[in-house]
Each structure stands twice: as structure tokens, then as C-alpha cells.
């Protein structure tokens, strides 16, 4: 059961990611990314992170991706044209990415017996557990992140403002 669910939603993730890669129009890429985010939320649930699954949907696909879509529509981004491009990106970049994938996969598979396995419901973190740690041990970083968000808001407003 767990495996089936994993395979379905994992496959959805990969499919969405590939679609993001292959689509020409950015809005299609954005929508594919939303699919990826949502599938990831399900995977988080499978791994027992209920708060994070909710946060993923609310924050990531609900706010961030919407922001992306707004900007795409604001700037009227069209289909991509073929421009002169960069040889380095293809010649050097793809082997780099492939090497990354290869190395990581190799490492993970090699060590798979040291790593355990995930059981459904094996480790469940409730929101109260999470918040207990967050507001007791990590209160300062939490407050600092609120400052960070404030700064980000101010920065965004200042940067995107129209010059007079």
C-alpha cells in the first residue's frame, strides 16, 4: 500500500518535473510545478509530517506558485524563442547534472541497507510536537524568520515600485 502510493505520487512528481522542463510557455511550467508541489505534500504525509504537508500546500502551491502565476501574467511572458544560447550550459552543464544524478543515486542505493525503511505511521509528528520544539527550543530563530519575512516584504515593495 505504502509502496503503491509512493510510486503513484512519486511518478506524478517526476512527470510534473519533466513537464516543467519540456514546456515552452512558462505558465505551463508553473502549473506543472503546482502538480509537483501537491504530490510532494502527499509524500510528506506518507512520511508522517502532517504539518509540513499542510504547509506545503498552503504556502508553496497556494501562495508562492500563485505569486509566480501573477508575475507571469503581469509581465505577459510569452513562449520562449530560440536565441543564441550558451554552449557551456549544454557541454558542461548536462554532464554536470548527469554526474550529480549518477553520484547521488549510486550513493543512496549503495547505502540502502544502512538506511532503514519507511513504514506508514511509523513515525508521526503532530503539529503540537512540532510547535513544542519550535516555540520552546527554537524561539529565537522563529522570531528572526518573522523579521526576515518583514524585510523581504519591504524589499519586494521597494524593488517593484514604479520610479517617479
Amino acid at each position, binding site marked *: 500500500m505504502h509502496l503503491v502510493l509512493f510510486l503513484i505520487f512519486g511518478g506524478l512528481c517526476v512527470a510534473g518535473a519533466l513537464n516543467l522542463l519540456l514546456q515552452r510557455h512558462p505558465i505551463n511550467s508553473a502549473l506543472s510545478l503546482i502538480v509537483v508541489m501537491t504530490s510532494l505534500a502527499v509524500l510528506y504525509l506518507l512520511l508522517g509530517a502532517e504539518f509540513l504537508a499542510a504547509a506545503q500546500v498552503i504556502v508553496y502551491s497556494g501562495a508562492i506558485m500563485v505569486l509566480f502565476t501573477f508575475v507571469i501574467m503581469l509581465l505577459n511572458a510569452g513562449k520562449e524563442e530560440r536565441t543564441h*544560447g*550558451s554552449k557551456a*550550459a549544454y557541454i558542461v*552543464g548536462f554532464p*554536470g547534472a548527469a554526474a550529480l544524478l549518477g553520484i547521488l543515486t549510486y550513493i543512496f542505493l549503495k547505502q540502502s541497507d544502512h538506511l532503514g525503511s519507511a513504514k506508514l505511521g511509523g513515525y508521526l509528528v503532530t503539529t503540537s510536537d512540532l510547535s513544542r520544539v519550535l516555540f520552546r527550543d527554537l524561539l529565537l530563530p522563529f522570531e528572526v524568520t518573522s523579521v526576515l519575512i518583514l524585510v523581504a516584504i519591504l524589499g519586494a515593495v521597494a524593488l517593484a515600485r514604479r520610479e517617479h
Partner: protein
Amino acid sequence: MTSSLHLWLIPLVPFAGFLVNGLLGRRFPKALVTTVALIATLIPFVQVANIALHFSSLTLPYTEQVATWITAGNFHADFAFALDQLTLIMLLVVTGVGFLIHIYSVGYMAEEEGYWRFFAYLNLFMFFMLTLVLAENFLLMFVGWEGVGLASYLLIGFYLTKDSAANAGKKAFVVNRIGDFGFLLAMFLLIAHFGTLSFSEVFNQVAQHPEWQGGFLTAIALFLILGATGKSAQIPLYVWLPDAMEGPTPVSALIHAATMVTAGVYMVVRTHVIFDRSPFALSTIAVIGTATALFAATIGLVQTDIKRVLAYSTVSQLGYMFLACGVAAYSSGIFHLLTHAFFKALLFLSAGSVIHALSGEQDMRVMGGLRKKIPITFWTMTMAVFAISGFPPFAGFFSKDEILYQAFISPNGLGKILWFIGLFTAGLTSFYMFRLWYLTFFGESRAQATTAHDDHGHGHGHGVHESSWVMLTPLVILAILSGIGGWVGVPEAMGGHAEIAHFLSPVTGAAHEAAEGRSMELLLAAVSVTVAVIGWFIAHLMYFAKPALPAQLASKVRGLYSLLLNKYWVDELYGAVVVAPLLLISRYVLKGLFDTGVITGGGMAIGYSAQGLGALVQRVQSGNIRSYAGWLALGAAALLLLTYVGFGTHLLFR
């Protein structure tokens, strides 16, 4: 143990004079420049005279160490001065004649631009010459040796706006350098074989090893001879001395007659211990000296510039000194050096007086009839002419005769041949000196109305006039010395005591006495005088009695005349054989190949490769975000690999 004589002061006072006049002289009034220069030369002379007076109370040899110079392992050389009889004679000549010429120059150079520069250089020369003479080791002597070459260059090219003067200076320096090269090689051999350059140590070592004959000692001697031929203008390196007449006449008198050119003779006499062990080297010197004497005398027969005649005469007389050294009659060589300093300096200075009187004219063909107009110059020059021609009782007779006698009785097989050639050359000497005498002072004046500007640089415009007393006083003093200067060396055969030979014998070894004894000496002396008289007679015939004769003779032996007039084409020969190939090599190999190709090319290659490398690396900074991303991805993969396998990854790929 005598108290310190402060020998170091002797060279240093002229050096101080050079510094003062050289650095500040431009702004001094002329009187101050004169005072500084004369004091800087007078003080050493007084000091030397003082030493001479107390000479008998000194313990010899006297050395004075001023400072350590080089200590490298077992080798060390110091700034050290030494005094012995030979040094004393040289010091007297250099400081005495030098001082007189300084006085003369005050008058001669009075209207020159660069008056201060002249005296600065002259003092510099005195400094180096005194260092050369006082040096206790080869290295310090070499300092003086090269330094006098430098001073000579500066003074020959004194009229620095004249191309010919600058070229002459350059020629002198370069030719001297070839000789210096020989001296250097000799020094290296000395270090290799003796481990030291100190005179006393080298000579002691040689004395302790009587079995050392020839071999490496010959090699050292031959290289020293090369140096001596450069400095003393012998074959094959004499070519600079005639050209050096471009310099002012006092320079010719001091440097190229009395002092610098005698440095080679002094050096040979100083190192005679080495030469004594190498009969081959001695013969070489004798042959070179005699050949040069004859060679230069023949050229001097037909020259028309009064200073050129005297220049070739100097070369010729130096040949006599070398002949003396070659037959191991060292004290005779020094004796001739002494007398030659007197009469040759006098000849040059009076020639300068003549030139000054004629406002710069040097060509004898337009002189004549000056006897009544410049009487004092005439009489002093007459003394010098008689002295050099070897008439008794003047100075040159005793010294030249001594040399010829020593050549005749020399155990060397060539002795008698050398004697004969020397005798013949003495006749030639007498002839060309009296030729000069007649052409300059006798007959009708052949001077043209225009004034010449050659040597003097300024026209007088007020006719032929005697020189001022500033210039005449040294002439008179030197004339007296030319008269009586030889009396220190009158041989016993003629009733004298040969003081100078005895004086020098601790340094030079005892002179030879022949089996034939005194009568042979008197006979040879009589022959010399006869030859001198014949020379005078022929000159009288050709230039006084029958003035048309020279031109007729010249047209009859046109080839020989042309050969002599053009100095045997030696300068042209050197130019073609030595100078031209060197120029070619310099221009095409050294400049074209090395300078342009290797050095400039190498530099450019580095520049270009840096540029190329930069251009390559520049491609990374494209501004294109995606290419940056590509490199980032590669880098990330590499880092990941390194993190996984650790930083000993290179060992994986063994």
C-alpha cells in the same frame, strides 16, 4: 722602523681636487679652479720631495696597508701602497712633470670653455697614475691602470663637440681595453698559480723556486706584454696614440709622453722577476720594442702635423724602453723613461707654445721662420731636439746609449741585430727631429693670412706672439732638466758613477758588465753620436740648404713615400680585418638574432601568451547566466564526488 709616510695621501689629494673641481668647478671663478688644481698637485709633489730627501733613512721595502679589500677563502687583496727606489723615481716623474704641466695648462687653456672640466680630469688622471705607481699588488695597480685609460679617454675627447676628438677618445679606450684584457688574464693566471696578487708574495714564491722556468711563467709574461703594448702603444696596439693628438697639447705632454704610456714599461720592470724566468718573453719584448721603434720612426719621417711627428716619436722612444727591458737592462729602461719624460714633455709643451703662437696652426708646411719671433720657445725646443737626438751632454744621449750598449752586449742571440736596428732608428730620430726643427723655426715664413682653429679653438688675430710667462716657465725648467737630467746615469766608462743604476739595483738587479769593458762602451757611444750627426746633416741638407729636395725625393720614390705617409695603411687594415667583421657580427648576429629575436622576441612571446591565455579565460566571464549555471553544476558534481570519496581521490586514479 720608520714612522708612517702617509703614502695614501699622495693619490688622495689629487682625487679631492678632482671632486672639488668636478662637482663645483662650473660655478667657481677661474682663479679658484686654478688654485684648487695646482694645490692638489703641489702637495703630492712636496710630499714626494720630502720622502726623497729622507730616503736613505727609510727601511725598505716599505708597505702601508690602508684597508682590506677582498678576502675570499685563501685569497685576499688589500688597498696597500708600497715604496721602493723604483716607485720613488716614478713618483718624482709623475708629480714633478705633472705639476709643471698643470702650471703650463693654466696659460694654455686659459680661454677654453670647460676650463674647470679640464683640470678636474687632469687631477683625476694624477690620482689614478699615482695609484698605479704606488700599488703594492696587481689588483690595485690594475685599478690605476684602467683609471688612467679612463682619464685618457676623457681628456682626448675634451673638445667634445668635435667628432674626430670623440672618435679618437673612443679608439684609445677600446684599444687600451684589449691590452687590459691581457692584463686581466695574467692576473687570473697569477691567482691560479700563486694564490695571491701581492707583488712581494709572488716574487718571493718565484725566488724560492729556481726550477720554475718558462711554462706558465711565460704565459703570464706574454699576457702582461699584451697589456703593456696596449698601454704603452707598441705593436700591435699603438694605433691609438697618433689619434690621441686630438686632445689638448698639455694632455699629450702629460699622458701620452711622460706618464701614462710609461705605465707599461713600469709594469714590466716591476714584474721583471717573472720575465727573468722566461727568455722567450724577454726576446718577445725586445723584438716588439725594436720593431716598433723602427716602424714608428719611419712613419714620423714624412708626417706634416707637428704633433703627429711627436706622437710617432713617442711610440718610437717607448720602443727603446721596451728594448731595454727585453735585454734585461731594466734600470736602463727606467733611466730612458726618466729622460724621455723631460725632453718629450718639453717637446710637446713647446709645440703647444708654437701652436699657440700661430693661433692654432699645426701643419708644419705652413710654418717657418719662427726663430726670431718666439725666441724662448725656440731655445727650449732646441734643447729638447738635441736631447732626443742623443747628443752629449744632453739627457737623451746617456740613456739611449746605455740601452744600445746593453743590447749589444746582451747574451741574447739577437742582441747585435737589435743594436744595429736601434742605431739606425736613432739616426732616423735625429733626422726627423731636426726636420721638424728646421721646418718650424727656420727659413721663410710660409704661414697664410688666415688663422686656423684646430687645436686651440679660438683665433687671436694679433699675429705671432710669444707665450705668457705662465707657459714659458715650465718650458725653461724642463729645458734645464733635459740638459742635466742625464747626468744621474753617466756610466763609469765616461767618468761617471752610474748613480741611477746603482740606486735601482735593489729592485732591478745588477746591470750587466761586458767582458769587453769600457773601451767597447766608448766606441759604441762614438758610433751613436756619429749617426746622430749624420741625421742632422741630412736634415740640414733637405730642409735648410736645398728646400726643394724633399719634394723631388718624394716624387722619385712615390710608392714608399705614400706607404709612409699613410702609416703603412695599418688603421685601414685593422678597420677591415677587425672592425668590419665585428660590426657585421654586432649588427646581424647580436642585434638581429639575439637582441631582436631572442630577447625582444622572448619578451613579446610572453606578452602574447599572457594575452592569449587571458583571452581564453575571458570566455568564462561571458555574462551569460546559463553558462555560469553550467559551470556551477559541474563544480557541484565535483565537490560531491570529493566529499564522498574523500580528498584522497587522486589516489583512486593510480
